[in-house]
């Protein structure tokens, strides 16, 4: 059984200075830990006044009784699966999928199952600390919450007084507490908001928003006949319920076409896999649209009624014949034509999937626009087997606490939105531009950065640049659960409670409202994010924007419009609302229709319909560097999880068998991978499952923080290799526009080399 851990005697005392990599308890302690029984630890008793879920209280009162179930929401990725925590004597023993939750359907993926090891990771941040030596020296001083928060607030105020609020950057990744994180930054008065979106799905969400007025539609798999995935690898980049639906769809013989330069597990389940040349998906979809329009295979009635700009589309598509596309994407014209006809014959139960991380090429936005348009031509919106309104934008209108209006910000944003990127929504941003602005001092110099649940050092391309940018800051504060790479360079670290120890605002899922609640008492001196933000806000004189005493006040305000009993919600973990009436089809675009020709694009002088944009290709001797997810890891957050690292312990570089032979590279051999911005040493995985002009490195590995004892220096980081290329329309980072050389590691390299 995983034991509940209290602080070890070796932990530094308050005020004590210590070395980063020595602070964290020795890992041997956990190995073979069954000897430390739950009962023995639970005997230590509860601290009084802990804010816990009702059921969690009950669990502790039982003390030696049965395992009890507490409903909560997983956070080992962004999918928000309903989970049931099995808690015995105040110790979490297991997490299972909640059958009532539409995102988990009673199951959890490997990461969800491994949440136990997030909670009981011995390397977790345990108490607030302030840097005690040079930045990056690894010297820290343990401090009280009061000192850490006051130190953070004082520095933020100092920056505001000296340079204006805009000199403070605040960044955070997609999560349930985001509204209050936004409160902090907007009330503080800075426009500089960083998210992960430009490194992830800006191209998709912006393309669909400008076409449909909705960022991320779903798929009616139950009635669908044909799905095209463009690099979307649902079998490995698991979105729990959708992965289940895809496999049900596949298992009944549903037609799946996968476009991917790699033979992914999704490709292995598909009826057809086309290893398309990277960056040329746009040509493929322009040609599909060409066939569908020129052969009259589209839904004329739907287009007439719900779309605008068909004439312009028809005109522009004329040149994009399958023969034209074949020369670019290395797929036979006959195959393209056949696919277009087969696909259209199944309409409206034919879906070109919107995909997910579409930060591949500077033309990815146009690819996504073409995909959005193909769906419109199929007339599949809201149709049986077609696209459905979905995503997080829908759901019940929750109540909220009242707060004052935000102060006006006048300063331009460091990331160029909207002055350089007029089409990128303010909420999305272009985070790689924030990093660059710190190096150039343009349009002005950012001085401070508050990083919340993010690891920019690992996620933004050109790690070396990001490191310089962070080192140059006057002030860097990190709120996280792990001593991650960015935290290593911080001035102050505020340790957050994990998702299994804290309350978060409600997450609607379909017509249900689900609650994330503590399943155990928070370990160590950690605090929930909502309380950290509030206490920081209070010290900044912004308390009116955090009008709650405890997290539950927010939840109570959210359910206020529905006459829901709070205690019942806590007990059950969710409540079901009456299903909403089916609405008429409506589109939140300027024209109120699906914009095949985009008025917004035209308004900034861009062509309103997608046009071919030639992607860069690697010169002789270089490869496209592909990256992507695996089922066992979530970005940069899971490489210290003992269970997940057991399943996927590193990230060797995939290289095609024939190419490896030519280069003299054997499976398992050490190779040097080099781009224009960095080099890494990795092991080769020689495989048939990748195009000869590509190599692939899974994301998330290559951590620099020695305090992450499991993940430190394991595998390699793509960010050390990635160059920065940004699409001027969507702000989307083009991750596949980095080209690399690969060669065997030689004795000479060993003499003078190292990793980037």
């Amino acid at each position: 059984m995983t034991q509940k851990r209290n602080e070890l005697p070796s932990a530094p005392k308050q005020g004590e200075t210590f070395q980063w990599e020595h602070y964290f308890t020795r890992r041997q302690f956990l190995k073979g830990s069954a000897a430390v029984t739950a009962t023995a630890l639970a005997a230590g008793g509860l601290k009084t006044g802990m804010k816990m879920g009702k059921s969690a209280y009950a669990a502790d009162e039982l003390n030696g009784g049965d395992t009890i179930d507490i409903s909560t929401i997983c956070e080992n990725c962004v999918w928000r699966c309903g989970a049931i925590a099995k808690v015995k004597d105040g110790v979490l023993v297991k997490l299972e999928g909640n059958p009532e939750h539409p995102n988990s359907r009673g199951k959890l993926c490997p990461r969800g199952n491994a949440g136990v090891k997030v909670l009981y990771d011995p390397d977790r941040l345990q108490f607030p600390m302030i840097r005690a030596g040079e930045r990056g020296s690894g010297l820290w001083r343990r401090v009280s919450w009061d000192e850490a928060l006051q130190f953070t607030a004082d520095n933020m105020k100092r920056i505001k007084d000296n340079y204006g609020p805009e000199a403070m950057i605040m960044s955070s990744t997609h999560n349930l507490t985001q509204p209050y994180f936004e409160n902090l930054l907007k009330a503080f008065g800075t426009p500089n908001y960083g998210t992960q979106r430009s490194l992830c799905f800006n191209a998709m969400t912006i393309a669909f928003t400008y076409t449909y007025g909705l960022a991320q539609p779903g798929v009616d798999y139950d009635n669908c006949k044909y799905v095209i995935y463009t690099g979307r690898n649902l079998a490995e980049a698991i979105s729990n319920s959708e992965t289940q639906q895809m496999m049900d769809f596949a298992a009944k013989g549903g037609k799946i076409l996968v476009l991917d330069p790699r033979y992914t597990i999704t490709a292995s389940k598909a009826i057809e896999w086309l290893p398309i040349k990277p960056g040329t998906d746009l040509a493929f979809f322009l040609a599909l649209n060409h066939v569908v329009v020129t052969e009259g295979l589209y839904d004329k009635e739907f287009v007439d009624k719900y779309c605008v700009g068909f004439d312009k589309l028809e005109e522009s598509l004329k040149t994009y014949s399958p023969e034209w596309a074949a020369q670019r994407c290395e797929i036979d014209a006959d195959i393209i034509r056949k696919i277009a006809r087969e696909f259209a014959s199944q309409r409206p139960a034919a879906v070109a999937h919107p995909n997910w991380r579409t930060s591949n090429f500077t033309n990815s936005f146009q690819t996504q626009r073409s995909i959005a348009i193909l769906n419109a031509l199929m007339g599949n919106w809201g149709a049986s087997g077609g696209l459905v309104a979905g995503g997080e934008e829908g759901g019940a209108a929750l109540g909220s606490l009242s707060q004052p209006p935000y102060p006006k910000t006048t300063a331009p944003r460091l990331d160029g939105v909207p002055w350089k990127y007029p089409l990128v929504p303010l909420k999305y941003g272009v985070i790689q531009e924030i990093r660059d602005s710190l190096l150039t001092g343009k349009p002005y110099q950012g001085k401070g950065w508050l990083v919340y649940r993010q690891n920019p050092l690992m996620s933004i391309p050109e790690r070396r640049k990001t490191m310089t940018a962070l080192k140059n800051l006057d002030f860097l504060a990190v709120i996280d659960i792990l001593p991650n790479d960015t935290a290593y360079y911080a001035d102050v670290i505020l340790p957050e409670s994990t998702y299994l120890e804290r309350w978060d605002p409600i997450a609607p899922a379909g017509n249900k409202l689900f609650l994330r609640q503590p399943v155990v008492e928070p370990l160590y001196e950690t605090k929930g994010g909502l309380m950290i933000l509030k206490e920081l806000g209070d010290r900044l004189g912004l308390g009116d924007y955090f009008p709650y005493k405890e997290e539950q006040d927010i939840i109570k305000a959210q359910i206020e419009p529905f006459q829901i009993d709070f205690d019942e919600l806590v007990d059950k973990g969710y409540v079901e609302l009456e299903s909403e009436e089916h609405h008429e089809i409506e589109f939140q675009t300027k024209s109120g229709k699906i914009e095949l020709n985009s008025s917004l694009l035209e308004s900034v002088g861009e062509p309103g319909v997608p046009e071919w944009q030639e992607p860069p290709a690697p010169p002789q001797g270089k490869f496209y560097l592909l990256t992507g997810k695996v089922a066992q890891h979530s970005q940069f957050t899971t490489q210290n999880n003992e269970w997940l690292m057991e399943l996927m312990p590193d990230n060797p570089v995939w290289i095609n068998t024939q190419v490896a032979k030519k280069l003299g590279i054997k499976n398992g051999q050490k190779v040097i991978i080099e781009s224009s911005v960095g080099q890494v040493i990795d092991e080769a995985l020689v495989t048939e499952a990748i195009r000869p002009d590509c190599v692939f490195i899974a994301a998330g590995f290559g951590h620099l923080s020695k305090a992450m004892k499991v993940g430190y220096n394991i595998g390699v980081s793509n960010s050390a290799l990635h160059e920065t290329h940004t699409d001027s329309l969507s702000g989307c980072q083009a991750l596949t526009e980095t080209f690399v050389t690969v060669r065997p590691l030689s004795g000479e390299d060993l003499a003078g080399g190292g990793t980037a």
Partner: protein
Amino acid sequence: MTKHYGFVMLVYRCIDCKACQVACWAENEVPLGKSRNWITKDGYKGTFPNLNVDYLPGNCMHCANAPCVSVCPTGASYKREDGLVLVNNKKCIGCKYCMVACPYNARFFHPEEKVADKCTMCSHRLAKGLEPACVATCIGGARVFGDLNDSKSKVSQLLRKHKHKVLLPQQGTKPSIYYILDKPTEGGILA
């Protein structure tokens, strides 16, 4: 009629995510570095771009003719009436004969308990009417559990509908774990 519990592995449905392994680790407090179940990657067949690959979920085969049981000198390894092969920790002396005898490498030596350890088909969950943990969390729907003696069970229906195989039939172990290798285009709906 007595029950005979077994698994049907729908190989096509396995996405090699290994949720089954993590669920088993948590459910059965399996020591770090050991595993009671696994997924075997069958290697890519063919050359780029004409490829095929299978992932084979596995665990103790709960053999009707279990070599681990016959070599056990103390009777610690035993076969239950419902088909489960189990280890009685109190009787196990840690001699590891069973580990050597098992052709599936399904057993490991528990470093703390000092006994042979393996899949119990989550007998403690079965007693509560629950499915084994690996089955309950299987994202792809590859692991199917049920009573092989019940003609109405899902496992029996699948075995009637599809061609099936067992691992290493030449060993004569008569496993209770069956594999269906059909693709949806060959044998119809895999559910």
